[in-house]
């Protein structure tokens, strides 16, 4: 953290987006995380992505659990809605909020402890249900906030700061999400914003359950030699399957990447994901081959990153339940409380 609030002075060339805001307007309070924590970089990536997408800050709801990662929503989008749930319970609160008002953009911010240990049950169900959200796990392989115990995503054989090897098998959050029905699944690294920002933008635009597993080194407890979640390890073992550009309907963002085969995935909302394949055999629209591919590479000790799976025609919870489109907060008393006669009818239908 820093003791100083970030000065409000900004570079004179800072530009406003279509919503009338500069990138700095999407910042939040000063971070209290350790200096160099990967989570802060992810916050910066969110800020960049939301600015680039011209998002109205008050149309975003950030929900999180407990942990250093779950604290970060305080450090970006300071003018958005926010809710800190109890440990591991973000998914159910997010689901509830989403049911009550589907018009907001939902951001679930969690850690590997929050989602893969105490919250793994809730995680499973929010994915199964296809809640329209961007769910991010800021994955450092430890419980950072409680001083660095191995989390459930720590790789077998990965060493703790004191040199003790982890003996348990890891939970692979990406594999879980794929298996449970998430319709947009990606993995990235906090130290690679070129990859992370477009991935987040694609997830925010995705109209279904989008899941991002972002390796985010804990500099205090898990950034030493022997750790598989350190800056050095991830850089050495990072295997990006593709480079992604996110193209909104309005503006084209051009990034120079080395040439490769280009696949364009048209999204439901009219935006396009342009993937420049780095692994020519990889098909990001096939769930089963994606699952196999990731497992094979994991066995080789590689961390596969990029957009791993996307369903261009996702369905979400509201579609499944055929709910009313109007948010609760705009319904009148009559719609929200249809009266005892209606209750009688419902009860009767259930007898």
């Amino acid at each position, binding site marked *: 953290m*820093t003791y*100083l609030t970030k000065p409000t002075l900004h570079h004179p060339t800072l530009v406003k987006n279509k919503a009338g805001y500069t990138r700095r307007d999407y910042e939040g309070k000063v971070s209290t995380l350790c200096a160099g924590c990967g989570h802060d970089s992810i916050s910066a990536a969110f800020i960049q992505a939301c600015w680039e997408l011209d998002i109205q800050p008050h149309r975003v709801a950030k929900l999180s659990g407990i942990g250093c990662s779950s604290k970060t929503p305080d450090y970006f989008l300071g003018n958005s809605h926010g809710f800190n749930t109890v440990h591991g319970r973000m998914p159910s609160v997010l689901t509830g909020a989403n049911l009550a008002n589907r018009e907001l953009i939902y951001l679930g911010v969690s850690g590997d402890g929050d989602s893969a240990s105490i919250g793994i049950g809730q995680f499973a169900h929010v994915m199964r249900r296809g809640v329209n959200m961007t769910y991010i796990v800021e994955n450092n392989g430890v419980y950072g906030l409680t001083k660095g115990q191995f989390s459930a995503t720590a790789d077998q054989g990965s060493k703790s700061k004191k040199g003790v090897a982890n003996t348990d098998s890891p939970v692979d959050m990406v594999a879980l999400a794929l298996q449970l029905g998430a319709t947009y699944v990606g993995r990235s690294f906090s130290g690679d*914003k070129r990859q992370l920002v477009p991935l987040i933008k694609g997830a925010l635009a995705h109209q279904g359950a989008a899941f991002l597993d972002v390796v985010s080194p804990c500099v205090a407890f898990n950034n030493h030699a022997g750790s598989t979640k350190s*800056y050095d390890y991830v850089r050495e073992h990072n295997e990006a399957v593709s480079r992604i550009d996110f193209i909104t309907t309005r503006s084209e963002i051009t990034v120079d990447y080395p040439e490769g085969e280009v696949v364009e995935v048209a999204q439901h909302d009219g935006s396009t994901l342009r993937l420049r394949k780095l692994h020519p055999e990889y098909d990001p629209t096939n769930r089963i081959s994606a699952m196999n591919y990731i497992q094979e590479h994991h066995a080789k000790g590689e961390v596969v990153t990029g957009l791993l799976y996307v369903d261009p025609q996702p369905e979400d919870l509201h579609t499944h339940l055929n709910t009313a489109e109007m948010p609760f907060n705009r319904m009148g008393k009559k719609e929200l409380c249809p009266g005892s006669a209606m209750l009688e009818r419902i009860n009767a239908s259930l007898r």
Partner: protein
Amino acid sequence: MKPTDIGNPAYFHKVVDCQWACPAHTPVPEYIRLIAQGRYSDAYMINWESNVFPGVLGRTCDRPCEPACRRGRVEEENAEKPEPVAICRLKRVAADYKDDVSARMPKVPSKKNGKRIACVGAGPASLTVARDLAPLGYDITVFDGEKKAGGFIRSQIPKFRLPESVIDEECGYILDLGVNFVAGQHIDSLKDLLTQGFDAIFVGSGAPRGRDLDIPGRKEAAKNIHIGIDWLSSVSFGHIDKIGKRVIVLGGGNTAMDCCRSSRRLGGDDVKVVVRSGFDEMKASPWEKEDAMHEGIPILNFHVPKAFLHTDGKLSGMTFEVVKAEYDSKGRRSLVPSGQPDVTLECDDVLVAVGQENSFPWIERDVGLEFDKWGLPVVDQVTMQSTVKNVFFGGDAAFGPKNIIWAVAHGHEAAVSIDKFCQSEDVAVRPPPMVRMLSQKMGIHEWSYDNGVANDSRYKVPLKDINLALKNIKVEVELGFDPQLAWKEAQRCLNCDAQTVFADAKCIECDACVDICPMDCITFTLNGEEDELRKRLSAPATNKSQDLYVSGTLKTSRVMVKDEDMCLHCGLCAERCPTGAWDMQKYFMQTAKAGPACRPKNPTPARRAA
């Protein structure tokens, strides 16, 4: 790009924009911090060391530091009117609120080193030479035709800008160093002076001749037409204490501004400044123009004087041709007739302030001293040495009229040269500056400088009530900052000497510094040629006068590039860095002054043969 050589003292010096721009390279942020801490005497002494006349300069300096100040740049698009830190007026605060500093002045050795130096003129250039050399044991004699020391500081600058007591005090510190001041002795012959056994001579005689305007009526109306600088010195010395009601001041420089403002105080009710050029191209500093207009003095531009009008041998007015500016394809300006009818202005007196010239009637042309085609002596830009090896020049006498701070800067360099010359060293070999780098880290998030960035706009110096100010020419107009205002203004300084120092080997490329930097100064990217690199940084680096700080190649084969242009020196990059790859280090630099350190061959003065 090649990795930046931060071992070169010039690299970080350039980052301290104000110090770099100051001819005497005063360590500005250091003294501003001391003022904020209420350590006025310490702040004064830092100034005194570099610029010799802090009280004088804190009121009158041309302040080249201020247009250079980073604050003006970073306030662009952030404040309504981007403005630099009031560096100059803060200097005055140090002078106004210091304690008695006489005990902190250098001690003069009781045993002299046997070398005798003559200084011609007692202006700021000569006095600086005397100040630098007297403590080293030199026997200094300063000659001036006037009764008191100070040169133009005393004779030209009106007392409402600079009270006499300040001049007395600061000239006094120097004369008290055992300097022989020979007052009232005008030097009439260099040849003669050269025979008087001085080891070296310094010429600091200024540019004492005011230009005249030879147009019809000049002779006939001579009684009421005055040369600006002659008139100002007569006012300063009390020989003149009134002027007509209607006054025209010709010229657009600072002398014109002093003439018109003085006139307003000596009976001129209707005072006008008339200039040939456009308002914006006038030589006077913007603040001096503002001060004049504040006192109800209009400035008429694009008026070229045509004739003095007179009736019965008495000045009655002037006629002017009205011109306009035209620019050729190369952007060169010429003034061409506008076609408008000539303008006649009535007046009782005219002050001619259209420029100054050097004149050296007392230097014989056969002593071996070369002059160039403009009548200026041939003087080395760095060593200040003339073509006569033991004669040195400085101040307005060297390269034409400049200002006090340049005179001081010349004085320091001439003193170094004279010291080296007298100790048989090569004057062309210049001493490097004295530089210290010191980490400011005190704790995890604590720095020994105040790294918070204030958002305040520039504070105005309070002024004396205008009616009172115009009544008496000796009443100082500016009241100066009080300690509270000074503290607030000091907070605007960005501590540009707290340098961001990057250690390649420690960086783990976590992006923390990039994310936190409020000004988007930092980028990790593949290296490239400067011009191309400048375009693809976090924020475009369009100000080429500011350097890019480039690291060596990092683990990911990228480099760290920092654009120095907009850095706030807030230290957040260093606070966010988990490995200490960034550190904030105070860069303290003072130019080398005359003395043992600047003569490597003879650190102790040569002993005289018994």
